[in-house]
């Protein structure tokens, strides 16, 4: 017992070293071209649902390797923005580019995912009838065609990556449990783990710490900050403490468009932001 514990502890300590970059986290090959500009570029994007303007002339630029936080009151359009980027919702007009080469509006969800855009949903969505390992296995970057999937076997390399990710998300002890019986926080972690298995170039993370305890939140913060640099990360979050702990650049969304952008201090002192969002929230916190 104690042997296992101490190796696990070493691993954790190892993992906490900020300078250490793990291979298994490095993005898989993605054809995205970022030599001449940002990795994600939204211009003048609008979408309305039955006349309700959910996204209104939204402009957003994410640089390669950036960690960006997006905040905004309920219904500001944060999730809808992610739906547009990942191909779930088509905007009424506007442009969405991934790097300088890929026009995301011409691609569907699997194509966009395979270009290297990974997404964590607001409501954690894992495959409940499969166990934790299988969830990670399905998300693992690699062959996606039907025939190849039928013949695919989990090789040593794949197994090793799954083990590493399990360690990272703290679910090594739950590897054979059904995802459906995990706690809310564990499901969140599992979904983050699935993102890591995909090794995307761009991660869209919708409310990752909802339902997490304080220590879990710290671990998530550490993980996301470490990912940034090699990968670009866009985080939507309501928890101001969390945003403050990871944010470099913050974008405030309000009624479907950008209200303010800058460092956390910049935006939190912006009177318009205080009015629509932070004021109420800070009081509540």
């Amino acid at each position, binding site marked *: 017992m104690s042997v296992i514990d101490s190796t696990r502890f070493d691993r954790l300590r190892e993992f906490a070293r900020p300078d250490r970059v793990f291979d298994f986290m490095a993005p898989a090959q993605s054809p995205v071209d970022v030599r001449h500009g940002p990795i994600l570029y939204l211009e003048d994007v609008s979408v309305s649902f039955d006349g309700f303007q959910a996204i209104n002339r939204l402009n957003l630029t994410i640089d390669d390797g950036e960690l960006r936080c997006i905040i905004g009151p309920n219904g500001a359009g944060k999730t809808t923005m992610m739906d547009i980027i*990942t191909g*779930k919702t088509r905007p009424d007009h506007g442009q969405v580019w991934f790097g300088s080469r890929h026009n995301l509006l011409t691609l*569907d*969800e*699997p194509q966009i*995912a*395979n270009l290297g855009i*990974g*997404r964590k*949903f607001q409501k954690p*969505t*894992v*495959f*409940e*009838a*499969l*166990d934790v390992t*299988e969830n990670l*296995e*399905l*998300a693992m970057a690699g062959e*996606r*065609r*039907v025939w190849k*999937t*039928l*013949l*695919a*076997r*989990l090789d040593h390399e794949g197994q090793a990556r799954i083990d590493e990710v399990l360690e990272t998300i703290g679910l090594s002890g739950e590897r*054979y*449990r*059904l995802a*459906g*019986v995990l706690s809310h926080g564990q499901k969140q972690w599992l979904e983050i783990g*699935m993102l890591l298995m*995909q090794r995307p170039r761009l991660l869209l993370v919708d409310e990752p710490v909802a339902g997490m305890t304080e220590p879990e939140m710290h671990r998530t913060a550490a993980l996301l900050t470490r990912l940034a640099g090699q990968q670009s990360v866009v985080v939507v979050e309501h928890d101001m403490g969390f945003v403050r702990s990871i944010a470099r650049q913050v974008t405030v969304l309000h009624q479907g468009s950008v209200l303010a952008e800058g460092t956390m201090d910049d935006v939190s002192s912006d009177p318009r932001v205080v009015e629509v969002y932070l004021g109420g929230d800070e009081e509540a916190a």
Partner: protein
Amino acid sequence: MTTQTFLHERDRSRQAFLSRSTLLTSLVLIVGMLVVLVLNALPESSAWHVSNATVSLLGKYFTYMLLALAVDLIWGYLGILSLGHGAFFALGGYAMGLYLNAQTSPLPGWQSIMTYFPVAALAVLLAPGLLALVFGWLAFRSRVTGVYFSIITQALTFALMLAFNRNEMGMGGSTGLTRFYELLGFSLASEGMTVALFVASGMAVLLAFWLCQAITVSRLGRVSVATRDAEARVRFIGYRVDHVKLALFVVSAMIAGVAGALYVPQVGIINPSTFAPLFSIEVVVWVALGGRATLYGALLGALVVNYLKTVLTGVMPDAWLFILGGLFVLVTMLLPQGIAGVISTWRGKRRDGEKQDRQEVSA
């Protein structure tokens, strides 16, 4: 939500191709077949003798079990509820029917190619396979799912029923195809043929069971279960859900076609009533009763329900539909996992009991 939830762990041993349930199911099928053959070989005076009529009836059950497997593969593991699988079964049956007809009198026009067994065998796979390919491609590409998909499969089989009822189709109109005498040069009326068809059907069930087992334990099988439970999520990790669905739908339709082809010579007729929407719904009830998402459950369901049907329609012919409906309602309310659910709960309890015993011993 699954039967195994109370175990909190997925039974890993069932994921291997050679799992206990695969071996057990295969064994039961093989031993069952051998027993029937031995009993059939006993002299007629013996109390244990199984008549040719019974062998033929069991052969028919095998073809229903095959059809149930086909439905379970896509409904249980992929969440596609087809209420039109009878259409694929019937197409396989008509292909075989044409071949059998061609053995006695030459068929007109294009149908004459069905004289040759290899062509007919190919048609048994291709006719349902191509229909499934085109139909599935249109439906899955435009993301028709759930109850909408089920409704259009009903419409499909209904439309085919109307078409095959017309004499202009050259498929015997409302009478269908009948007057079958010879298969591969052997008389259909012979005793050897009855046994051969029974064995062929049993082998087909075994092979299809292995095929489905191989698919469901593969990574593709896990992708399909994932699709069943969270389709959008599967797309966002990069799988083409429409391709997965199309592939399994076509495989399933082909299995149904083979079932139909084996059914026809044993029953001696194929007519448009096989396309009837009600028949396809019945098939789904077999699978639901047996337990969807377990292959042996589908096999068991088809066998049990059809045996009941044979017995009960003899006693009270008009009541069968009501009994079937009642059974279906009862099972969905009381045993949502069907017979297989009862078995696995029972096995799980026993396993938990064993575990507890061990713990008590070690404590």
